[in-house]
């Protein structure tokens, strides 16, 4: 087995040992899903049955898929590389025969696969029953949706990786992380769908990579976006993926030169 597949499999197994954590995630995402469902339905109802292109059914689909992919596409709370810079363990990572960014990327894929199967699927099944919402029937929706989720996952990883790289320049990264958390939570469409934003806020969101890692995958898989528009959305995701790839390669290159190894 190639080392890449081994990394994916190892991380998949590691994640699957935390059964109670998975159950806790399903429970908490479920409760928040029920709260969010009420919050969004009230907005649709208050706007006269349709808000930002959402009716009651599509609003529930947004909540359902949004909660289901949250484990797979976590937006904050990953400081593993920054922590390893602080302890000096990063020296071991950089001495590996595999590039730092690639190494963590494959681990992230393994993590995401487990999170989707162990956490996302149960939420989808339970949520569909509780909220009584009919899923889209067109198989093409799911094809586009899966591609969108894979791209979203990659974009999300690159953003989080870039945030961790800040630790190559300064050890005090907590403040940057908080600011990132605020930005990504709002602009990704996690708190409220970006389609409900007033124009000026929508413009800011669209100028960031954040909708491409959460809102767009949900738009695709819930069947909100169809036809030729699908290629448009996937194209935007690809552009952000390319930009972030270049950016993180440059940051990794220069960061490794700046890095000071702590400890001994």
């Amino acid at each position: 087995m190639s080392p890449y597949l081994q990394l994916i499999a190892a991380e998949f197994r590691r994640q699957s040992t935390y059964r109670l954590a998975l159950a806790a995630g399903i429970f908490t995402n479920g409760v928040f899903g029920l709260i969010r469902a009420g919050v969004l339905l009230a907005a649709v109802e208050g706007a006269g049955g349709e808000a930002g292109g959402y009716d009651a059914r599509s609003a529930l689909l947004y909540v359902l898929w949004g909660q289901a992919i949250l484990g797979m596409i976590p937006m904050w709370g990953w400081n593993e590389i920054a922590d390893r810079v602080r302890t000096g363990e990063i020296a071991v990572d950089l001495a590996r025969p595999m590039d730092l960014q690639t190494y963590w990327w494959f681990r992230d894929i393994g993590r995401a696969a487990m999170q989707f199967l162990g956490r996302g699927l149960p939420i989808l099944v339970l949520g569909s029953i509780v909220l009584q919402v009919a899923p889209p029937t067109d198989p093409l929706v799911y094809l586009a949706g899966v591609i969108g989720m894979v791209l979203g996952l990659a974009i999300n990883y690159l953003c989080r990786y870039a945030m961790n790289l800040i630790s190559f320049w300064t050890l005090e990264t907590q403040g940057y992380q908080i600011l990132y958390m605020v930005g990504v939570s709002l602009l990704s469409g996690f708190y409220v769908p970006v389609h409900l934003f007033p124009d000026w806020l929508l413009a800011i969101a669209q100028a960031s990579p954040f909708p491409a890692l959460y809102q767009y995958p949900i738009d695709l898989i819930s069947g909100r976006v169809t036809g030729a528009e699908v290629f448009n959305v996937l194209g935007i995701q690809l552009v952000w993926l390319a930009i972030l790839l270049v950016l993180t390669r440059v940051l990794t290159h220069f960061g490794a030169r700046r890095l000071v190894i702590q400890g001994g």
Partner: protein
Amino acid sequence: MVEDRVLSVWPTIIAARIRSQWAYRVSFLLNAVGSFFTGLLEFAEIFVLLSASPVYGGMTLPEVTLVFALASLGFGFADLVFGQMDSLPSFIRQGQLESFLTKPLPLVPQMITSSFQLRRLARVIFGAVALVVAVQFVDVVWEPWSVLVMVGSVVFGFAIYSSLFVLAGGCQFWLINGTEFTNAFVYGGKYVGQLPGSVMLAPIRVFFTFVVPTTVTAYLPVLLVLQRPGQEVLPSWLAWFTPVFAIWSWLLATLVWRAGVRKYTGAGG
């Protein structure tokens, strides 16, 4: 005499914690700004929802802002004092809890002063700003009783949200590796508390009123001072019983916390 000496320890401990944070000034300020922005973020959600639906759950933007502000103040104070309870799982895992248990001081105060996060004050400040702005635009009856209801909502909100941190802490003794469970009622409760209870689905409305009582921390008192009747499950007169809800949630939290500490057998260390 011993009592006196023990009591005088706390100001010293808290002062030391605050000084140690001030030593890393840039980090402290960035964190404080971050906490402030978290408040702004939560308000942004309300702003977006209300720009899509100008009447939301029977309330206008200033009225929802008032709910948000009062709940933010209650939660903000609770987070400032009891927020450190969130670190209990890592205290247990690192065996640090034993070192607390060996000291001749009560456990909860030791926990909450172990890292008194002054930056959380920024969250309170944001709530206060929102309150000042909201009351300019809201049609509140300004009588002694209505002022009392609003002040009371912050005081009892502080009590109720604090009890949730303690309740979550108590649950952690059973939940090692499952810490996220408690987020459902601590942060879920805060989320529900900051919004009009009228928008919630029925099971959520019932749970976050009669089990984890966070709709009484702001929404019901605001209905009362706006002289609105409320709706199913949430009539506004329930707001008069806010102290009873606070007693109930502390009772629940204390029972679970005590049982948890008794169950605790150490994690090595």
